């Protein structure tokens, strides 16, 4: 092929950006109105009112740096359609507004594209010249740039995740390149853009403390207390506090910190989002329901004693479980911390360089996804994207990646429920799956099969579930009586896959020997 070695990356980036333009007229979720409202709030109101404004139900619940980002966008929005910047104009969606918002997502994705390029530079290339399509950096570039989950969530459903993930991946890339201060700065910025990334902060904290502040290790890998560098610790602290000060400073000065925090951490929402994220609590809920039904059938329980509120009602509210103990936010917090503790301890006791940090980050993300309170299924992307880096380097990780990606991406299907978007999401998912399976198989072909037969059967079962939920169910008589059945089946089936991937990733972290970093 005439394309030379360096030009494929711009071609991929241009291609995916043009593809994103095809979704401009597609379905938009309420997140579109959320961001339009934030544009209006930050543009029209003084800073002191930003976190108090509640004319719309979509109040500002991201940290201040993101509010400043929206303020910056609103300056450009003025030239498209100034009407969108008025707070009273709820649900305003003129063609110029739609065009502007969609284009803003596509343009801010340039951060993600830059981060993907940096990650591709960090990947270890095997010896020998290879066809472009079988190079790990090419495969990684496609897996990141053309990621189905990002296309679905950002460019159809509407959000700015590409921009945010750009910061995360760039920070990871900097750590892989041993530029830890830059990585820390980027992560601090990210935390102040969207605080959900607090979930992976323990990984950063432990890794930086252990591998950056202690400059040397003993010969057997254990910690050498004498090599502690106060200077480095202070540098890290300075970076983090200065970024937070920049972001929260104005609000602290105005005495609004409690209000801001209450907006950022609303705990009144229920255990599960309206569509259950495929995590442990989905399985827990189903178990509870099954036991309740069984108990009534076997006459062990009185039907009148069961609480009336049904979880499958799909409303976001607090509810109780009928048979198993109820779950409170505190319980989920404890479970999450317990789930990430072994990972953090592992990289403290046996640091394995930046790749060990990456594994710990993945496990923190997945652990919080599995056990967290009111988790949204979009959060699976925080685990899928960094895992792509490991997947192009190791066969075992590639197998885990395929399972996690396929189930995680499929669990995003209920986000787009309109019939007009069905062909799009199926075609995009097929495209990404075909590529990831064939490219990863070719990449690791020398080392045997990627997937165990049972895993293959599980994934094929996913296809059956998909056909049943998207095609068969809407045409069947149960559509009226049990409208949330396909959502339940989807999240339970995917929860199995996600849990399995979680356990396998843990096993690979705890049982793996040292990652020997090869010279690039």
């Amino acid at each position, binding site marked *: *092929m005439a*394309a030379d070695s360096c030009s494929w990356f711009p*071609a991929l980036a241009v291609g995916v950006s*043009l593809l994103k333009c095809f979704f401009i*007229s597609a379905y938009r979720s309420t997140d579109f109105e959320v961001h339009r409202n934030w544009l209006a709030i930050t543009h029209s109101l003084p800073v002191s009112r930003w976190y108090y404004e509640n004319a719309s139900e979509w109040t500002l619940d991201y940290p201040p740096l993101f509010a400043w980002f929206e303020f910056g966008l609103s300056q450009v929005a003025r030239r498209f359609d100034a009407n969108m910047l008025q707070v009273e104009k709820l649900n305003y969606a003129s063609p110029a507004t739609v065009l502007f918002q969609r284009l803003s997502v596509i343009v801010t994705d340039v951060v993600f594209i830059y981060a993907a390029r940096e990650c591709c530079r960090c990947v270890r290339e095997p010896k020998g010249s290879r066809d472009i399509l079988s190079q790990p950096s090419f495969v990684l570039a496609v897996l990141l740039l053309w990621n189905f989950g990002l296309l679905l969530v950002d460019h159809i459903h509407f959000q700015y995740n590409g921009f945010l993930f750009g910061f995360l991946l760039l920070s990871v890339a900097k750590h892989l390149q041993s530029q830890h201060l830059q990585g820390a700065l980027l992560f601090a910025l990210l935390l102040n853009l969207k605080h959900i990334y607090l979930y992976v902060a323990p990984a950063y904290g432990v890794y930086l403390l252990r591998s950056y502040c202690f400059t040397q290790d003993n010969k057997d890998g254990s910690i050498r207390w004498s090599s502690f560098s106060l200077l480095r610790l202070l540098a890290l602290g300075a970076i983090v506090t200065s970024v937070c000060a920049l972001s929260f400073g104005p609000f602290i000065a105005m005495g609004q910190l409690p209000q801001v925090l209450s907006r950022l951490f609303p705990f009144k929402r229920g255990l599960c989002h309206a569509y259950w994220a495929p995590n442990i609590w989905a399985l827990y809920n189903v178990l509870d329901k099954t036991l309740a039904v069984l108990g009534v059938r076997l006459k062990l329980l009185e039907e009148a004693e069961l609480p009336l509120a049904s979880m499958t009602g799909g409303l976001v509210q607090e509810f109780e479980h009928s048979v198993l103990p109820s779950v409170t936010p505190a319980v989920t917090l404890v479970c999450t911390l317990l789930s990430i503790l072994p990972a953090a301890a592992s990289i403290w006791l046996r640091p394995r360089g930046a790749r060990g940090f990456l594994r710990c980050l993945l496990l923190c993300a997945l652990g919080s996804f599995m056990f967290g309170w009111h988790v949204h299924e979009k959060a699976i992307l925080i685990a899928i994207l960094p895992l792509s880096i490991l997947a192009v380097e190791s066969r075992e990780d590639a197998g885990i990646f395929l399972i996690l990606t396929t189930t995680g991406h499929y669990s995003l299907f209920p986000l787009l429920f309109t019939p007009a978007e069905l*062909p*799009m999401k199926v*075609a995009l998912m097929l*495209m990404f799956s075909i590529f990831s399976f*064939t490219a990863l198989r070719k990449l690791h072909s020398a080392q045997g099969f990627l997937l165990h037969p049972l895993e293959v059967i599980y994934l094929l079962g996913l296809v059956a579930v998909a056909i049943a939920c998207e095609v068969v169910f809407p045409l069947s008589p149960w559509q009226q009586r049990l409208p949330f059945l396909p959502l339940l089946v989807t999240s339970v089936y995917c929860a199995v896959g996600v849990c399995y991937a979680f356990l396998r990733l843990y096993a690979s972290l705890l049982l793996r020997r040292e990652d020997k970093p090869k010279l690039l």
Partner: protein
Amino acid sequence: MQTWSLVSICVLLAIIARWGVSLNSYSAGKPPMFGDYEAQRHWQEVTYNLPIQEYFNTTNNDLNYWGLDYPPLTAYHSWICAYAKTINPEWVELHKSRGYESTQHKLFMRTTLVADLLIYIPAVVLYCLYLTDGSSKKKVSVMFCFLLYPGLILIDYGHFYNGVSLGLALWGILALGLGWDVLGSMAFSLALNYKQMELYHALPFFCYLLGKCIKTGLMGRLFLLVRVGVTVLATFALCWLPFLAEPSQAMQVVRRIFPVARGLFEDKVANTWCSLNTLIKIRSILSGDSQLYLLACTLLAVLPSCIRLLTKPTFWHFKLALVNSSLAFFLFSFQVHEKSILLAAPACLLLNDLPLMALWFLQASTFMLPLFLKDGLLVPYIVTSLGFLFFSIYLLSALDHCSEDKLRLGAYNKLFYWVPKMDLAFIVRWKFYISIAAMVGLSIAAAVLVAPPHLPDLFPVLVSTTAFLHFLGTFIHFNVVQFSEPPSRKSQKKSN
């Protein structure tokens, strides 16, 4: 990576591109006539509710309101689509459903475009895999660019089912390329019975098959002639069966298909007569009888290419003749619609051999901006054109293959031997850049600026004249190429 996975990824991307364009809101058109969308819906209404004999005549069927003006196969296709009645009878109720519109109906109409997928895309895939030279990656690149051709994507969105007729014609071309003459003629006859515009391609098919007949021995010649003749007649008979009972019915269908009562041209179309009209008011000079002169003009333009094909019936000449013939008909024929330039889509067949000229022409053929602005397709137009240009230049390295040999311009030297030798590649590249810049500039101007009041049609006229110049240039160029030596069979440099 295996070829099948690359091919499926490209096909999926093509599907996403088409569906993505179709997500734009259909321009509803205004009462009392609404738009092409309403025409399709009306045909489903007519074919479902009325008996076959009444499809083309007036008793229960008001021919002035979007009467059927395509051959019978389109009618049968509408009839199949009219099984929409099972979903919602309101969509096709006779007389009452005029102007009907709803989101569900739009979704249904979009899904009927699956016919495009089933016929056009497999033909493209098979053509690129079996009838193009080069490594498998080159073949997939050609296929990708072929599928991305913006003209078809954008036109089919608003003007329906050109993909079906082009697809059938492509199957015909594919079959002829593989040597299956009978199947090829059958496919092309079906294409002709779907849309009469395929007549633009009829002469090359005819000359190619005739040429092959002449080249083979006496017995083989007769045998081939008989086989092809019988196939064509049988296919036509099958499609026209319900109308052959009475000769007057058949004549009525013909009258509907070839409306000779209309004018020289409609709107601003990029052919010779419309462009000449800006200088001398031809439309008023030529009367209805002048159609014969036009026909003569067209045939004269087509003649060189077809005679060359008759004498040398190779697949290479066949492809060139298809392009030349469709361009000749477009440029010189009667009552040509803007979207007929789509019939020059066979230029996609030349993407592998002459990437730069093919892509240049295809890009110019997409330059139908006024039509797209009317349909509300500005953003898809920009995105698909950019995508097509970028990927064709990148994947097919079109700008690298500009040398004299690659462009097959040996004949130019013989014609213009007195002109000093210049660096042809340099000139061609710069002409290409300037032309693209002109098209981009005009697109921006037409989309953003408002025409001055004393020249209300300024931008459509500028656009169509620019397009006309491109088409004329392409027509001359491909005719010259057809008279040059065919490409040498030496393997091209493989640069991986």
